[in-house]
């Protein structure tokens, strides 16, 4: 066999496990799901599906629960993504200084993000408890009246606080980015008399924008799919409705499918979510030209 053929055969045989599974369990279900979203599938009529055109999609936009939950999801995303990134980047910048015992801090920041969601919800319930809970204890210390963290007014704030607690997972990625910034840039700036805040604003942030960009995209995709923590935080089971402000879009879709067997409608809901993700990431991509800084001589 010729060298080139040999290489091609090796390449395709090595990626075939992934590729075959991708075709069967990725691409095919995706198309199948898209098809189902145009039918009247409700779980028992798979043999005689009826094409219903845009009916399910029309229903998404007239379903007040869907629209309400979509709004709440955008709200959570708009706060969660920038805040989570600021925390991860800020902590990474602290760790990037000459710190003794850096491994310990790194571990402590990272740990919450690997705690399984089920367990972290159980842990946070004690923080939020309105009866002797710790957050209320802290408020009390400052002379502020206790609030009902898991009640109507604060449920989303509580969810956001809990999500922020897991933001340390991004510290490692940010740290890797920070380590990639050449030190002599800072030295040159110091010699020119740049203060520490100036160095952060003019060197660190611009050079970190590719990492920030990556994190924004991944953050948006992740945030729009939040839902199960919201259910668990309300102290309910996966098929119960969480407290209203935390009735997020994913919860709505999940429950339409698994609690009410509305498969076709659920798929339409999810494809609308997918479109929302596409539109948001497209917006970030388009604006990235204006704020993501690529070093032109670092191509490759």
């Amino acid at each position: 066999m010729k060298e080139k053929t040999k290489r091609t055969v090796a390449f395709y045989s090595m990626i075939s496990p992934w590729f075959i599974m991708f075709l069967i369990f990725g691409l095919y279900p995706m198309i199948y799901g898209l098809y189902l979203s145009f039918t009247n599938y409700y779980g028992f009529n798979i043999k005689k599906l009826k094409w219903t055109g845009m009916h399910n999609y029309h229903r998404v936009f007239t379903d007040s629960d869907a629209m309400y939950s979509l709004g709440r999801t955008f709200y959570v995303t708009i706060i969660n993504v920038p805040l989570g990134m600021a925390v991860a980047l800020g902590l990474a910048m602290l760790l990037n200084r000459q710190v003794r015992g850096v491994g310990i801090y790194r571990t402590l920041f990272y740990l919450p993000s690997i705690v399984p969601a089920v367990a972290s919800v159980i842990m946070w319930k004690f923080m939020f408890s309105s009866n002797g809970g710790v957050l209320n204890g802290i408020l009390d210390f400052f002379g502020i009246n206790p609030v009902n963290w898991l009640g109507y007014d604060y449920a989303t704030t509580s969810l956001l606080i809990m999500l922020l607690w897991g933001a340390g997972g991004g510290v490692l990625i940010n740290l890797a980015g920070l380590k990639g910034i050449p030190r002599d840039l800072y030295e040159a700036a110091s010699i020119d008399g740049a203060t520490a805040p100036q160095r952060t604003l003019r060197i660190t942030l611009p050079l970190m924008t590719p990492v920030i960009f990556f994190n924004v995209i991944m953050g948006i995709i992740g945030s729009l799919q939040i839902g199960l923590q919201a259910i668990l935080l309300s102290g309910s089971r996966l098929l119960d409705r969480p407290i209203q402000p935390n009735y997020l879009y994913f919860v709505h879709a999940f429950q339409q499918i698994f609690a009410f067997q509305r498969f076709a409608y659920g798929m339409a809901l999810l494809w609308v979510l997918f479109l929302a993700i596409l539109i948001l990431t497209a917006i970030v991509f388009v604006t990235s030209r204006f704020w993501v800084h690529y070093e032109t001589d670092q191509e490759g």
Partner: protein
Amino acid sequence: MKTETTVKGSIPLYVALILFSAIFVFPMYLAFVQALSAWNTTPGFVPVGFHPENFKYATTLIDFWNFTKNSVILCVISLLSVVSSGLGGYAFARIAAPGRNALFMIVLSTMMLPTIITQIPQYILFHKYGLIDTFWPWVFGGIGGSAFFIFLYRQFFAAIPKELEEAARIDGCSIFRTYWNIFLPMSIPIVATVTIMIFQGTWGDYLGPFMYLKQDHYPLATALSMISYKIEGNDKLILTSVSTAGAILLVVPVIITFFLGQRYIVEGIVTTGVKG
């Protein structure tokens, strides 16, 4: 720069680090307090009484060991992905073949795709072919690997010097043997990173099992999110101390594997440079 940093100047830095560490650890500490407290006491900063037996109840009031066994089985099956993702990553990094770039674009775009878009139709398909309440979905998932891990492996393998392959080729090594005998042995950091991440991901996943399995086959994470700890004959009273103890037991293996692999995870992420 180094000479600038005086002892006095670094005090705010350490204050900030210690403060943030405390915030991150605090909920875990509270969980411990609660797990050791007497049943149905209000949570506080110190345990009410000292009841380590809550941990024992956590394993006896529900079918704990059966759920744990299921978790272990799912994790072992999922580790197939360590091998298949590695093969894929190697091919994308080191073998020039027609169509490689286009296929790699597919890998990248599946990273961007929300998982739920395929999960529900997958559920419907598995249902159609009678694979619900079996572990087959995890076998298929394992064989298929994951886009993210293929990407990590690729970044790692791409950084290895070319001469290594050429030397192997001159010695008559086939492409597969070059991968197996030369590249894999030097890839411990990335293999360890991927192994730990897959373990943690599968161990903590509760949605997939909830969809594909019935209660007897639930892993621990799903069981804890679906089943409450109660005493027989009193359905109203949920034992929060015991369920917290259960949650802590769920976290322990995750923390242990993280400590064992910490060095590799950090090295793996920093050297592969997940920078977008």
